[in-house]
């Protein structure tokens, strides 16, 4: 039984560091960290421009998908911009920039697109994703977050077992 981790930092220490960052966000910004909310802030106005009125017609949709485009004032969009900057710097310094060799196969790309699209819809329905709902809401003991964690991971484990992706196995 081999593990795939090679050259990556210790997961427990990484988890504690991430917890400290999340705590800092709670204390100084009054909110947790996230990701799918930024996609909503950017894609919502596009959807609204493409089909005016469709979002406003369903109130439960309107509260999930913003129609105003104001990314420079949106905390979560700016935070995700920070994530991208941090990841680029970190990957370059660790020699991992464009180092992957298993990311180009057509099957891999189409699975990533389909998976991303499903996650986009699922996160809107669920009020967040693995970052904003599971991680941040989980730390605040939100009922919805603790419902999401077992259901999302349980489904993912079952789907992975049914549709195993051979390109993602083995050590780096």
């Amino acid at each position, binding site marked *: 039984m081999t*593990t795939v981790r090679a050259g*990556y930092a210790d997961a*427990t220490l990484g988890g504690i560091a*991430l*917890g*400290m960052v*999340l*705590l*800092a966000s*709670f204390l*100084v*910004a*009054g909110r947790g960290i*996230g*990701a799918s909310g930024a*996609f909503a802030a950017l*894609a919502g106005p596009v*959807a609204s421009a493409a089909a005016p009125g469709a979002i406003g017609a369903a109130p439960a*949709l309107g509260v999930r998908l913003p129609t105003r485009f104001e990314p420079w004032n949106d905390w979560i969009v*700016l*935070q995700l911009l*920070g*994530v991208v900057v941090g*990841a*680029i710097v970190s*990957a370059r310094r*660790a020699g991992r920039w*464009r180092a*992957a060799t298993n*990311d180009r196969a057509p099957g891999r*790309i189409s699975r*990533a697109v*389909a*998976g991303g*699209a*499903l*996650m*986009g*819809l*699922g*996160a809107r*329905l*669920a*009020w967040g994703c*693995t970052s*904003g*709902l599971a*991680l*941040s809401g989980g730390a*605040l*003991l*939100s*009922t*919805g977050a603790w419902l999401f964690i077992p*259901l999302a991971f349980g*489904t993912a484990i079952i*789907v992975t077992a049914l549709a*195993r992706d051979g390109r993602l*196995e083995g050590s*780096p």
Partner: protein
Amino acid sequence: MSLDSLHPAVTAIPIGIAFGVILERTGLGDPRVIAGQLTGRDFTVVRVMFGAIVTAMLGVVWASTAGVVDAAAIALPPTDVPAQALGAVIFGGGFALAALCPGTACVAAASGRRDGLAAVGGLFAGTALTPVAWPVVRGVVADAPREGATLARDLGVPLGVVVVLLTIAAVLAMVAGRLMERRSLAHSAWRPTTPESVALALAAAFALADSRGLVTGTQADAIAQEIVAEADHVDALDLAQWIRDGTPGLRVLDLREHLDTSTYLIPGAQPIALEDLDSLRVAHGDRLVLYSDGGAHAAQAWVLLRVRGIRDALVLKDGMAAWEDEVLSPMHPAVPDDTARARFAKARELALWFGGFPRLVPVDAPPGGTRPRRRRTC
């Protein structure tokens, strides 16, 4: 200088950078690591996620006990069980296919991975196409999700118990993860590592403090001190000034009973019943001002909010009666010294601004009694 007055980028960008660096360093931007977790070969996801949840949870409960933060003022995701259950299943399917989640897809793309970029494109498309899929899924979605739903409240269990059980479960998951990863190595790996032990100790200490009333005891004492010091009150004239100046975050709550549409409310006030107060959502930086007729309901609401950990709440001194007497129809002082004159000048200006009628000359004092009327006080 409050952080709330700064541009959101000041906190958002550094926090985002740290988040991105940690995800990249721990390998979560690598779909092999996530696929490894979903097939049981690698436990990085469980260890990072539960390590972070326990650290941040213990940080919040202790910071809140120490009075550093109002836990109730931190934005909590809402709860809508059917919508979140369906969302979680759809999300889980996508998570398995992409072997990336929204945050880690961005990290993968930022590491130059093409599948990461493809997942980011898919996320954007899936989010933008949500209105198309909405007619299919809308049946399970509540019109308004439940705000403020937490495990402790929904299960009716003390917070300390939830904190301890969750910490134990998370530490067990992390230890199990370590064992599964290096099955043939390390003889004593079942023992909690130092950080895991620290987390267990902090959780146990919090539960002990919580159950023995140390936490709530200090709180009750602190609340009593504030009441004695009248730090919980605001003058009607000061409130009028705040409303006129458009003070950011100001929220005025009307707790009077039997309000109907013809009742006069203080401009901008939001009517709320005492029994609905529990579900009131308070944002970071909100300053609540409560009023009722005399002040008894407002004062009771203040205590309820204060116990919830909301600190920036004030009671309008002498309630609606004070608003009518001091703001809407202030009376010219009977003995006009300088302070009284200055106060009346301010009141007169505010009365005109709020559409009231300042009583300029106190000539028509009715026989047998003078205003201001007698008020009930809290």
